[in-house]
């Protein structure tokens, strides 16, 4: 079944590249996403057996991240089908500078989207760190063409940055893998492997200096991809220039996958008794990311960039939560789910706003609630959710993390964290609420078409989910979250 999870999207991608008809391509896309989600759902009921001598297996942590990927992909697919139908045909005018450009062929876009799903799935099911590395690098390569869907100079610049910065970053993670091998080469270990279970099994026998170096390289390498400041420089460009549906997947699914790589390293450090070392580093990078994002969210002139910086912030919160440890790990894992769903929803709504107003400038968008009633309401709901207002899920997860910080007597850190969150709240409310309120410019109102159903259902589903998660966490989910937290040293 694990093979099916990885291989079905690969086969579908090959099909999509071969099929001439765009309509059939979209059918393949939706069908694959549905089957993938179905298989993932089945994995919750009956956990599949490990395959390939345990190289591929679904543990609790993998299952959680796989489910996020699968769910987001399914909703994004529904949106993508409508989006692709709308984008179809001929040259288009650039929204900002007014020149004409073409889109990449749709079959290539669909194929890369499916390969993106396959590679992200492989990341979540890899239990061998070498294979994990191969899969993470493959996600970069599969998603780069997606960012360059609109063929113009800004998206090209974003794609180049993404490709080069992430490839170099991930190359450093490869060095981290080799250092892990050295750390594990002790007389007791026999032949050294990069299997997660073997490395955890070695425990304190591992050589600490090499293990420390290994974790550092893994953190910097995968952290580049995850968007931890100051390594995040590719992220705002890629998120703002790619089609909204791709931004949603990058932010909601891909960043988590990179985080998984860091968490695997953390698991090994924990087993080897280096827990404090890795936790302190995670806290440091977490706080830097939140602070950095706060600075750039204030007065941000481009709303998609603002959402991208908000992703940097939330990745920081994830790292901080795992670093703080104790109850905060449960909070961080819950936060990963909440952030993915909320941010994907916001990017999809941002796509609707962009399509209607034809600008990414926050200053030029006014009166979304009146001009696009449903998108406008979703936008405001998304604002409340992402800044951590009750009753949405992020409120719960942030509260859990803050409570754990206070329980450990980290008063100053809590105060700083809350201060930065307050700055981000002010920054986001200033832009997002202004966009929602007021009167839309007359000239824009005339050209606007009514809201399309395909563009509303996916974000609406996601917003219902984050509302539910804020009020009630189903026992099945909280059980898995609890098991994940335990595996990472939480309570």
């Amino acid at each position, binding site marked *: 079944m694990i093979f099916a999870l990885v291989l079905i999207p690969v086969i579908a991608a090959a099909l999509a590249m071969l099929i001439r008809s765009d309509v059939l391509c979209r059918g393949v896309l939706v069908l694959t996403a549905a089957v993938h989600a179905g298989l993932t759902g089945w994995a919750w009921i009956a956990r599949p057996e490990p395959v390939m001598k345990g190289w591929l297996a679904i543990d609790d942590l993998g299952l959680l991240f796989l489910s996020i990927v699968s769910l987001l992909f399914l909703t994004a697919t529904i949106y993508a089908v409508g989006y692709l139908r709308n984008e179809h045909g001929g040259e288009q005018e650039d929204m900002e500078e007014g020149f004409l450009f073409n889109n990449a062929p749709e079959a290539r876009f669909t194929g890369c989207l499916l390969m993106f799903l396959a590679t992200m799935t492989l990341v979540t099911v890899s239990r061998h760190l*070498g294979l994990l*590395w191969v899969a993470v690098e493959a996600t970069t*390569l599969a998603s780069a063409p997606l960012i360059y869907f609109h063929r113009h100079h800004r998206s090209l610049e974003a794609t180049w940055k993404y490709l080069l910065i992430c490839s170099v970053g991930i190359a450093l993670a490869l060095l981290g893998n*080799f250092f892990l*091998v050295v750390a594990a080469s002790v007389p007791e270990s026999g032949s050294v492997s990069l299997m997660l279970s073997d490395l955890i099994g070695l425990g304190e026998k591992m050589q600490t200096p090499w293990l420390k170096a290994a974790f550092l390289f893994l953190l910097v390498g995968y952290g580049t991809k995850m968007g931890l400041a100051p390594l995040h420089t590719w992220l705002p460009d890629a998120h703002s220039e790619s089609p909204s549906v791709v931004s949603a997947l990058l932010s909601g699914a891909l960043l988590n996958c990179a985080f998984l790589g860091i968490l695997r390293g953390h698991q090994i450090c924990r087993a080897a008794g280096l827990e404090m070392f890795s936790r302190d580093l995670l806290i440091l990078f977490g706080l830097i990311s939140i602070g950095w994002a706060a600075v750039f969210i204030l007065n941000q002139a481009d709303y998609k960039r603002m959402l991208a910086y908000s992703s940097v912030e939330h990745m920081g919160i994830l790292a901080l939560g795992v670093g703080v440890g104790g109850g905060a790990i449960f909070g961080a894992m819950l936060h990963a789910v909440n952030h993915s769903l909320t941010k994907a929803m916001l990017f999809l709504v941002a796509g609707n706003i962009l399509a209607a107003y034809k600008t990414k400038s926050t200053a030029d968008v006014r009166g979304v609630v009146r001009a696009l009633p449903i998108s406008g309401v979703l936008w405001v709901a998304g604002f409340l959710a992402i800044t951590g207002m009750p009753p949405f899920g992020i409120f719960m997860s942030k509260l859990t993390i803050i409570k754990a910080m206070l329980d450990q007597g980290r008063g100053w850190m809590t105060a700083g964290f809350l201060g930065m969150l307050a700055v981000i709240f002010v920054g986001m409310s200033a832009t997002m609420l202004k966009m929602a309120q007021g009167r839309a410019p007359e000239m824009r109102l005339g050209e606007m078409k009514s809201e399309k159903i395909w563009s509303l259902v996916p974000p609406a589903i996601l917003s219902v989910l984050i509302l539910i998660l804020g009020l009630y966490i189903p026992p099945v989910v909280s059980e898995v979250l609890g098991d994940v937290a335990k595996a990472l040293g939480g309570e």
Partner: protein
Amino acid sequence: MYTLIDMVMIVLVLTNLILLGTSRLRTCIELIAIQGIALGVLPLLVHGESLGFEPIVFSAIIITLKGVVFPWVLVRALSQLNVRREVEPFVGYGVSLILGPLALASCLWIGSRLPLPGETVSTMSVPVGLFTMMAGLFLIVSRKKALTQVMGYLVLENGINAMGVAIAKEQPYLVELGILLDVFVAVFVMGIIIFHINREFDHIDTDQMSSLRS
């Protein structure tokens, strides 16, 4: 065998130093091909006496990819572009050539401080691997042309590879092949993107691509 491994390491060091000092893109590509072939020979030398079937196949794959295919992709990209040399890099060639040996010295020092446990393939591999990585990173940040940056990425990858062969003797071949496949696709995709950059901007100077700011 060990002296032969050290020879490979010396080839890496020399090619790195020339790479830092040359402006002709064609020469850079040739140097990277030499590095690729040198790295391809390494698995044969490391497995020395007990030479099995797998190292030979693996070594053939590395030589084909790193020694022939990657340089071919780069040469093809070069022939489509209207550039022959890297002009006015951020850091000049004279300065680069002075920085090179300094970096090498510091890598040797770091290498002496990082003793590898157990029996090692070559004491040179860690410092030389580090130096190659540094040279690659330096090429990426100090040169303007997108093509040179791809070469920098390849040199960086070669450095990690050189270290990996020495310290992780028994990497499963599946993973090694996966890594090679990834690098192959990366070079391929980067080549395509460079082609588009050239068509869109009429140049491949990455410092002039600056419309995206905070």
